């Protein structure tokens, strides 16, 4: 089955494309806690102005770094989540800075921020104040715990938010500490929810002309990732125990990650109508190599989900595990795709980058980075469209790269004023 690949447009490198958010302006004062939000809006065509303190955004300190050089202009975290944005420096803690910010708000559509609740109010830049200047402004506040509640002023970090989500408690080995879910991702989910809620607010504004204050609580964004947890607990009165790579939901423990010749694969040995027929196909393939042992006798599609016995499941997993050990990730994946068996390789980041499915979908994006003298290969847009070539066309900005453009051309400040503001550490 072939789909017409021309159906999906790929990124063009031409600016001024007719994107859904073309013409919309975003003032992004968020730090690493909310930085992903505006980068999504940039991907949708908005003009995003990253407002950094004169010394540079704190997110620029987050590694890894290009060639491991800890430099404000070489943070890979910064590159990843600020592509497509412009940068101005502005110290909003000064009165001059606040005045300039208010001027920028006059012609902006969105303000994205991630400061502690009350911080913006102290600067006279909270939603009510900004709405008086521009009633259509949509202000999105992304904070670890939300704007209200007993923990609103608490300190946070990625691991702490993942702990609060309830997800960590289920992850890891039974006799070892709970484990973070791989990578840092709490703020990524927060940023995504921020972008989404901002767009919903925009939809409302286009009907009514009114802006809104959007309050995103990152910890709640992460709790949402645990769909099994609440119903499982509320219905079955059980918490899900840690079981390493196994899944222990009801009465049996399923292994999910099997070693193979050159790494690992994800597979769940199952029975019943859906999983059973796949298992049958897998066993037939194993049989061709003389590796099926007594699994050919099993009536895979007839055994109900709740009829599984741990002893026999463990035995099946052992036999199947031996088959996996005799093959590479790539061999097993090929077999799985060909015979419609749910089995995937555990890819490393390197494997992901080299994989042909992504390359054939032209997933990767090359953006020039003048300061580095080379281009950077980015993961592509989050989705594809038949009508619009979404995606950014510029890499992450250098500190204050667009000061002149914004301050002189847009706000019409004179060169002398710019110098004065620089000397006063406002810019």
């Amino acid at each position, binding site marked *: 089955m072939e789909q017409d690949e021309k159906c999906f447009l790929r990124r063009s490198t031409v600016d001024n494309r007719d994107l*859904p958010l073309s013409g919309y302006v975003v003032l992004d004062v968020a730090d690493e806690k909310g930085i992903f939000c505006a980068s999504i809006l940039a991907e949708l065509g908005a003009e995003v102005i990253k407002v950094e303190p004169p010394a540079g955004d704190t997110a620029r300190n987050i590694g890894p770094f290009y060639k491991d050089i800890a430099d404000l202009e070489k943070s890979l975290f910064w*590159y990843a989540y600020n592509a497509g944005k412009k940068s101005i420096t502005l110290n909003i803690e000064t009165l001059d800075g606040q005045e300039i910010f208010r001027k920028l708000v006059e012609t902006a559509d969105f303000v994205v921020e991630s400061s502690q609740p009350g911080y913006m109010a102290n600067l006279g830049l909270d939603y009510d104040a900004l709405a008086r200047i521009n009633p259509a402004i949509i202000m999105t506040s992304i904070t670890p715990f939300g704007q209200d509640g007993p923990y609103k002023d608490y300190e946070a970090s990625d691991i*702490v938010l993942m*702990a609060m989500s309830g997800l960590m408690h289920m992850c890891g080995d039974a006799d070892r500490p709970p484990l*973070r879910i*791989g990578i840092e991702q709490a703020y990524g989910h927060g940023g995504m929810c921020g972008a989404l809620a901002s767009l919903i607010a925009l939809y409302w504004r286009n009907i009514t002309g009114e802006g809104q204050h959007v309050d995103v609580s990152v910890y709640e964004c992460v709790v949402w990732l645990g769909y099994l947890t609440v119903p499982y607990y509320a219905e079955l009165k059980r918490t899900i125990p840690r079981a390493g790579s196994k899944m222990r939901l009801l009465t049996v423990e399923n292994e999910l990650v099997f070693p193979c010749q050159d790494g690992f694969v994800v597979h769940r040995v199952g029975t019943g109508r859906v999983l059973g027929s796949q298992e049958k196909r897998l066993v037939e393939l194993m049989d061709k190599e003389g590796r099926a042992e007594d699994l050919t006798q099993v009536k895979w599609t007839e055994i109900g989900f709740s009829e599984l016995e741990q002893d026999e499941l463990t035995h099946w997993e052992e036999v199947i595990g031996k088959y996996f050990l005799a093959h590479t990730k790539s061999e097993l994946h090929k077999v799985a795709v060909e015979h419609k068996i749910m089995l995937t390789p555990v890819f490393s980041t390197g494997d992901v980058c080299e994989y042909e499915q992504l390359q054939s979908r032209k997933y990767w994006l090359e953006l020039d980075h003048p300061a580095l003298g080379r281009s950077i290969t980015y993961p592509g847009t989050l989705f594809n469209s038949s009508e619009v070539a979404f995606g950014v066309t510029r890499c992450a900005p250098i500190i204050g790269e667009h000061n002149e453009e914004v301050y002189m051309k847009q706000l019409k400040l004179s060169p002398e004023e710019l110098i004065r503001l620089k000397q006063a550490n406002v810019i």
Partner: protein
Amino acid sequence: MAKGALEGLRVVFIGSYWAGPMCASAMADMGAEVIKVETHARIDNYRYLYSPDGSPERGPLFLVIDRNLLSVTINFTRSEGAALVKKIIKVSDVMLDNLSPRVLQKSGLTYDAVRQVNPEIVMASLSGYGQTGPVASYSAFGPHLSGLSGLSGLIGYEGDEPIGEFQGYNDPAAGLTALFAIMAALRYRANTGKGQYIDVSEWEVGSAMMGQEILDYTMNGRVAKCQGNRSSWMAPHGCYRCQGEDKWITIACATEDEWRALCRATGNPGWMKDNRFADAYARLKNKQELDELVSEWTLRHTDYGVMGILQKAGVAAVPVFTISELFTDPHAQAEEYLVHLPHPHEPGSYVYNNPWKLSETPPEIRRHAPLFGEHNEYVLRELCGMSKDEFDKLVEDRLIW
């Protein structure tokens, strides 16, 4: 009741499990009218999974994820059924599906076909691998996609083998991606009058969320490894045991000021003079010894006790919640994160509220997950103007089924 931001928007949704329904119900939470097309021929398995008595109206996952949706039963696997679905699409704004590309093609409800009845339709398809490419027709569940996106390979203790995950964490991110893609497309349509087709590949969303790890490979040639609870720049950082059975606290100490505050708050000012912990670099180097010392202290306190002491000192610390804490924790309760929703076949179930609040148009959990075909009359007779005779015949022919 407050007005919903998306009130007046009508969405047709075909799909099951998590990613698609999450997108659908999030739209419904914000006021859209979202019609889930179901059929006996392809029942959403979540209606049955863990259902206490095997009833399709009591699947706990379905009750949580499919709240606020309407349900119409049409056997779209038959061409006359697909034609009926098109009648609903004709009077709708958005079509969303998370069928596999193969099933979507077979159903005849592809974008090209749907566009014939509604040229301005915004259609979004959510699949594991996308609509094109060599493995497009492959199917998968969430944990399998995590294997492909690279996430599973990074879930493991430092230096250990990966243990992967079983929840399918890429599902919700993909569902939310579909949602903001739809919102962007609606904005585009308002400007240009044109609809469009959106292709969301769950796998690609998963990889895009790993920006700096991917860049570390493409820029530095370095393959990411399991880091456990370690941070590359913060120490102390991790998970420490507390008093009681399987009780833990997570601590993340980000600055020198926070380190000093932690030393004082734990009654260990001597740590500040210890050369092994002189700065972040030294603390990372001597992480094991530092973690042992911190554990000695945390073991003498309850998890909430540690949080109280450290947060007061300005250090990030929160217990590792089990699910019961989501119900009992003071902040979770104050924020009303879990909402109790009554249901005709249940004493009621707890559902997650949305993690965002809009000042004028907050999300609202208005109604329970629909009974199978609960809105057949409303959708087909009222919205599509079908006569009673025609309706009854379609029921008899098992097209409304």
